[in-house]
């Protein structure tokens, strides 16, 4: 099997993996708290954006960069709101709202000044990744210092935050290691996107586990 075939296989697997969190979200929706409902909305939106992106490219032969610019901002807002539900202290909850405003401002600068036109919003995505990694580490720090969860592996927020950390840290690492001149070379392009597909599949699997595990009362109040 050549690298192109592997690339196609991973692409399909990655795209299909979104069905896992969607299925878990539909089946368990009634049990979800606010945070998990936000996350289900994010999963549906993500699937919808992927679908629209395919339609734009294949039927309208148009760049999907604009769509992903808007998606990056919405993704950030939804994930930040999810993180906000994981913390109790009002000051920290306020900090998440400030982070949304700061990122909105950064996104506007990236869109209109740094990467205008049909270019992909790689700077905004990288900054979003940095924010998400920071939020995830804050969550892990909080969990580790409070020690109130009895079985961490049965805590949905643990799986979801792990998914976010792996996905965004992996993508950020990929972005930092990438070289625009090399990405244009097909072999390098295939490897680059193959890793991205793997990360996406892992992200979706972990999200599905997180959504499938019944949230305990601690999740909603911690």
């Amino acid at each position, binding site marked *: 099997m050549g690298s192109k075939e592997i690339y196609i296989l991973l692409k399909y697997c990655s795209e299909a993996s979104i069905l896992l969190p969607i299925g878990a979200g539909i089946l368990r929706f009634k049990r979800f708290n606010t945070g998990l409902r936000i996350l289900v909305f994010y999963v549906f939106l993500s699937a919808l954006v992927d679908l629209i992106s395919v339609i734009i490219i294949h039927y309208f032969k148009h760049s999907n960069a604009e769509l992903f610019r808007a998606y990056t901002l919405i993704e950030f807002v939804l994930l930040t709101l999810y993180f906000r539900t994981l913390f109790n202290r009002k000051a920290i909850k306020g900090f998440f709202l400030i982070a949304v405003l700061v990122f909105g401002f950064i996104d506007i600068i990236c869109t209109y000044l740094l990467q205008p036109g049909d270019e992909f919003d790689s700077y905004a995505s990288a900054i979003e990744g940095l924010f998400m990694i920071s939020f995830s580490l804050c969550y892990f720090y909080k*969990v580790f210092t409070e*020690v109130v*969860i009895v079985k961490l592996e049965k805590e949905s927020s*643990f799986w979801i935050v792990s998914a976010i950390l792996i996905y965004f840290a*992996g993508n950020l690492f990929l972005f930092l290691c990438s070289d625009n001149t090399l990405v244009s070379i097909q072999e390098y392009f295939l490897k680059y996107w193959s890793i991205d597909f793997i990360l996406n599949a892992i992200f979706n699997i972990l999200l599905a586990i997180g959504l499938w595990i019944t949230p305990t009362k601690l999740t909603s109040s911690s």
Partner: protein
Amino acid sequence: MLLLVSFIILFLFLYQKKRLSQELKMQKVEAEYKDELIVATVDIQESERKRIALDLHDNIGSLLSVIRLKMYQLNKNTSNPALQESYRETTDMLDDMLETTRTFSRELMSPTLEDFGLAHALENLCTRIHADGIMHTSIQIVGTYRRQPLKTELNIFRIAQELLNNILKHANATEIKLLLVCSDRLELQIEDNGKGFIKNEKTPTSGLGLKSIETRLHLLKASLEYIPNLKKGTKVVIRVPLQE
């Protein structure tokens, strides 16, 4: 990616370790609190016994003595034989009451224990049971008894008292033998020739008396053993580690 996965697994491992250590710490604190509570309960119980014993001895005992004296004087001043007989009967009843009060008082608080120690108090206890004529009771002391803190002696004494009471009440025995072995630890053996005792899971913890024994054994960090296979009767061995 592997690094991130390793980080999450390591986090999970460290978290569980921390949670376990915290749980252990909590259990330790809870156990300490429970011990303090037991000590406080036993202390309160003892001080209450002491108060009741003193009240019995000083108030009721004294009053009974005064009444007895008055009855004696009344008896002396009357020439009516019927009244004299009545006074005599009343004086006898008062004597019984006085004796009973003294016995209660001694059972509640043993002055011998405080003044002369456990060995003497046990000897005294045996002598009293023997003197009452209920049962033949003897005590043998092996080794030299060195006095222990009063609380330790009191707890051992109360255990012995409770076990002897149980024998008197339930064993249908005619003889009790006590053996106090003093070495680097104290070993008290209480043996009777009664109907025997079938140890089952429920018995050691049921009943107030046995609960009290259990609490005191816990405070003394002592052990209690029922020795089976005796042809007749029961043998109980209490082993108490001594403080330096």
